[in-house]
């Protein structure tokens, strides 16, 4: 790629929009992942009894749904990014590429 193309892309306001919305979404979701995972680990490390709390009349503990939710949320977080990216980032990228030709 020649630097002329880089200059042209850089001058396109859509490029700034693409990069800033994508970075901010990526950053928010990265933080969400870190909080989700390290929250889970530190909760276990500092208060192991909490997840052993019984819910309901039987043997079921709070830890079971919490663990399941952590797994499902990891997938949902990826899904949110992919949905958003498919809907708007790809569109913007396509426009930038077209306008740079």
């Amino acid at each position, binding site marked *: 790629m020649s630097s002329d193309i880089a200059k042209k892309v850089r001058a396109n306001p859509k490029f700034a929009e693409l990069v800033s919305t994508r970075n901010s979404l*990526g950053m928010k979701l990265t933080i969400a992942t870190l909080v*989700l995972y390290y929250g889970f680990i530190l909760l276990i*490390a500092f208060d192991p009894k909490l997840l052993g709390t019984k819910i309901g009349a039987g043997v079921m503990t709070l*830890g079971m749904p919490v663990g399941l939710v952590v797994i499902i949320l990891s997938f949902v977080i990826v899904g949110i990014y992919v949905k958003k990216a498919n809907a708007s980032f790809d569109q913007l990228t396509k426009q930038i590429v077209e306008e740079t030709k």
Partner: protein
Amino acid sequence: MSRLKTLLTTAFLSALPTLALAAGPDAGQTQQQATNWTAIGMFVAFVLFTLGITYWAAKQSRSAAQFYTAGGGITGFQNGLAIAGDYMSAASFLGISGLVYMSGYDGLIYSVGFLVGWPIVTFMIAEPLRNLGKFTFADVASFRFGQTPIRVLAAIGTLVVVAFYLIAQMVGAGQLIKVLFGLPYNYAVVVVGVLMIVYVTFGGMVATTWVQIIKAVLLLSGATFMSVMVLAHYGFSPEALFAEAVKIHPKHEAIMSPGGLVSNPISAVSLGLALMFGTAGLPHILMRFFTVKDAQAARKSVFYATGFIGYFYILTFIIGFGAIVLVSANPDYLTDATKPLLSIRGGSNMAAIHLADAVGGEAFLGFISAVAFATILAVVSGLTLSGASAISHDIYATVMKGGKANEADEIRVSKMSTVVLGIIAVALGIAFEKQNVAFMVGLAFAIAASANFPVLLMSLKWKGCTTRGAVIGGFLGLAAATFGVIFSPSVWEAVMGNPKGSALIQLSNPAIFSMPIAFIGIWIFSLLDGSARAQADKDGYEDQYIRSETGIGAAGASAH
């Protein structure tokens, strides 16, 4: 004697952070069982089918792009399955279900660690990687840098990770096959080595991908069937399953809550860092992103992969509990009926295998055994291909030939490298038969997180990063990770036999200090770098940045 071994394996599994679970099933010193012809028959069927695919793939694997990346012609969905097939090792399946069988809830904590790396891969790595790279992650890391030093660093990072991962897989394969098929250890290692060489040299990435896809489908189907059978036994009520497990398991209600796995917060966070960021630095996983046509497909493939892997870990949890209720008290699966659970034949890693017999009889046992072997084959093929690519593409074509290698020569070098790597893997697999290889996967993840990942991330995101900074920081991270593993309890005490508590670094994984060392090293040595090369590195950032964000100029899918 065998009971002592079982007990030792058990004690080892429950006492240590069991990093082996990442990839290398530490089946311990298993006993050879009677030859299982059903399992061998099913495995032979798998091999013949995949060899057929290899033959078909060989006819189209003529160009370098075909060989390394299947010409970029894999769809997002297929690649998602292949990534899952690459990542769901025999140890994830057998090791984690075995951990759940032994300790209950702790197994779930472990699975979560292996899953949370995937969102990070999605947000930070997948798209820029596809936009900038061609065949190996070194293409990306060295995009604007001096080629030789970064390629050498990346190739070393790749080969070290691949070597440790491979040894763990080979030893695991040998131990497993002894139990599952009743074949001698050395036969098993040689069979794995030969088949992997055939898949990779003749079929390249096309065959490797299909082996991984087929294996992922078989493993997910088998695990689903087992989970459904277990749940059906309890009228699809998890509460009823758990209640029965609590009644049978010697630890009773303790299996429903976190146990000893996460007791030291610093150690737990350190292990978490290695698992999370190590995933984003595993060369055989990163290489999979070049097999799809563009950044969008790369992103979709992580989405599917995360779904399959997350689903798989939920299944292994149900399977572990299923083994508690259906295997642990059945004398058929025990070596000593007076010691339920602990005296399980072949050690706790066999929990899922015995459960297969309990829910599906001998035919299904044969199927699951064959799937376990196929799983190892798929993982080692991916590893070997990425190791061979580092040698042929990074070292031979770029460093030695200055990027002007003849394509046919480059492919020849990578095929030769595959054969050599295969022979080395077999030799090491045999040499390490009696060794405890549990630490090796931990080391592989630590190095991936402390050398490959920081160099990749800083070269992508930080304009001020220079060749010298990346190389020094990368090597510092590699050295710190290696040092931290050698002086950790799992190597210094468990492998070298030094007294308990004598290890210099009381952490299960060094990532908490080796990752910062790499990042700070890259940062400081880049800042101090006033060379002409440093200026060129920074000047090259703008073009790299535009291409990584938009894909303009990216290597497209090659014509078929």
